[in-house]
């Protein structure tokens, strides 16, 4: 079955084996001529299962037994992320929240507390804050501006909106006893960003991704924040980054 969606201003047709992916993406359904058609086969699902098992083994976790329809959602996003660099767009693992229409993106190693921190922003700023995407937003990186887009791939808490906002600042989050925000350089940010961005299998697409990351780090102010999970961390971070 096939349906059409708009992700990061790009119309994508998804031809899936299971209905679950269409329910997952329903908030992004649209009409229009697709720029990309994603077709999933059982081989794509099996590849996701192997990749997931490899990651579990590498992390020393028990191997998850995921259902095919869940793995298909991952396969769909992988194909989209593989193609998106040609639209100056990348997938970055992080949690993006907008306050008064300006987006702030927090990225970190898994388990650091990205979602917990952006939940503090929602608590601190109430209706002024909109959760764009809590796990895997898309970033369109134009020569002089970056836009963050919500996607359905929004993490286990399913926090996201079908919306977009200009990226005002990006922050690498670390756990610390005291909250402290400092500006950092591109070279300080890049090693982690390269771990958090989707790295295409195609070398040409990866080279495009690297050029886009260069542009991103030259366009958007970068910060490193050591923080605890006290409610005041959100306001301290906002005051430091709002400019």
């Amino acid at each position, binding site marked *: 079955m096939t349906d059409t969606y708009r992700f990061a201003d790009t119309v994508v047709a998804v031809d899936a084996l299971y209905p679950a992916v269409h329910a997952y993406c329903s908030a992004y359904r649209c009409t229009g001529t697709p720029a990309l058609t994603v077709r999933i086969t059982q081989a794509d699902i099996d590849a996701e299962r192997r990749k997931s098992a490899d990651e579990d083994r590498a992390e020393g976790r028990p191997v998850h037994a995921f259902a095919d329809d869940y793995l298909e959602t991952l396969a769909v996003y992988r194909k989209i992320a593989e193609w998106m660099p040609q639209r100056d767009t990348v997938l970055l693992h992080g949690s993006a929240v907008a306050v008064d229409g300006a987006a702030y993106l927090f990225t970190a190693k898994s388990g650091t507390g990205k979602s917990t921190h952006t939940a503090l922003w929602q608590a601190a700023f109430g209706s002024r804050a909109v959760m764009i995407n809590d796990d895997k937003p898309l970033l369109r990186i134009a020569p002089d501006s970056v836009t963050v887009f919500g996607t359905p791939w929004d993490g286990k808490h399913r926090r996201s909106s079908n919306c977009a906002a200009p990226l005002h600042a990006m922050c690498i989050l670390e756990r610390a006893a005291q909250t402290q925000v400092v500006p950092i350089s591109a070279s300080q940010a890049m090693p982690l960003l*390269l771990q958090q961005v989707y790295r295409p*299998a195609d070398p040409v697409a990866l080279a495009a991704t*690297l050029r886009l990351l260069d542009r991103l780090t030259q366009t958007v102010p970068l910060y490193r924040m050591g923080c605890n999970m006290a409610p005041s961390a959100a306001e301290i971070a906002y005051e430091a980054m709002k400019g």
Partner: protein
Amino acid sequence: MKLKQEFIAYDTDGLSMLVPTGSAGFAGLVQGNRTLGVILSLLQSETTEAEVVAAMLARFDAPEDVIARDVRRVIDALRGVGALDE
């Protein structure tokens, strides 16, 4: 030997890195200074360790044994992450 197609050499803001594609068996990064960047650029085409050392000697004012040691260390690291076609 030369760098595999699944690995891309990347320089930014004084930092040299080797970045694997999503299909490479290695998911981390190899990072270093300008020396790494030069060695990676030499490995874009088929070469030998001796040729890399000779090219580095022509470029950097350092004793041969120091350069040879640095080259060996980098090549061992690249070999360790499966980045070389040999």
